[in-house]
C-alpha cells in the first residue's frame, strides 16, 4: 500500500475530495514526526508506538578504499508494533 491508496481510502469513507483527504493523511504523519522531534513518544493503541532511539558511534569502513571511518552517534526513529498488530500478522 502507498500513501496514495491511503488517501483514496479516506476519501471513500468520508465523502471528502482527494485533496482534502490528503491534507488529513499528511497531518497524521507530520504530527508523528513533529512529536518525535520534540522528544515526545507516540503511543497508538492497537497499532504500536514510535520513539527515538540513540545509536552509539561506531567504526565503519569505506567500502571502496577499506579505510576505517568513525560513524558518529545519532538518534533514529524506532517503531515497536503493538500486541494487536503482532497477533494479526502471526495469525494462521
Amino acid at each position, binding site marked *: *500500500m*502507498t*500513501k496514495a491508496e*491511503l488517501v483514496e*481510502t*479516506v476519501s471513500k*469513507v*468520508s465523502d471528502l475530495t482527494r485533496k*482534502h483527504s490528503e*491534507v*488529513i*493523511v499528511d*497531518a*497524521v*504523519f507530520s*504530527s*508523528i*514526526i513533529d*512529536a*518525535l*522531534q520534540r522528544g*515526545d*513518544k*507516540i*503511543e*497508538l*493503541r*492497537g*497499532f*504500536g508506538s*514510535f520513539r*527515538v532511539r540513540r545509536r552509539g558511534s561506531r567504526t565503519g569502513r569505506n567500502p571502496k578504499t577499506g579505510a576505517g571511518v568513525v560513524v558518529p552517534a*545519532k*538518534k*533514529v*526513529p*524506532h*517503531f515497536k*508494533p503493538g500486541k*494487536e*498488530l*503482532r497477533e*494479526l*500478522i*502471526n*495469525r494462521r
Partner: protein
Amino acid sequence: MTKADIARIVYERHGGLSNREAARLVEIIFDSIKNRLGDGEKVQITGFGTFVIRQKRERRGRNPQTGEEMLIKPRRSVVFRPSKLFGAAAD
C-alpha cells in the same frame, strides 16, 4: 502523544471536520495500515517511512526470569524503515 492528540491536530489542520469525524478518520488510517500488514503487504508512506513484514527464524532463547532455555518458534514481525526526511528530523 496518542491517537486523540493526532485527531485534534487533524481537526485543526483541516478545519472543516467535526472532532468526531477527525477521530474516526485517524482510526481508519491506522486500521488500514494494520490490515494491509496483516495480509503480508508492505506499506510505504512517502516522506514518513515504510512498514515491512520480516520473517524471523526459529531460534533458541532463554526465559530472562528463570534462565530456562526454550525454543522460540518462527514468527513474523513488522519493521519500520524511516524515510530520509524522518530520520534527519529525529537526529
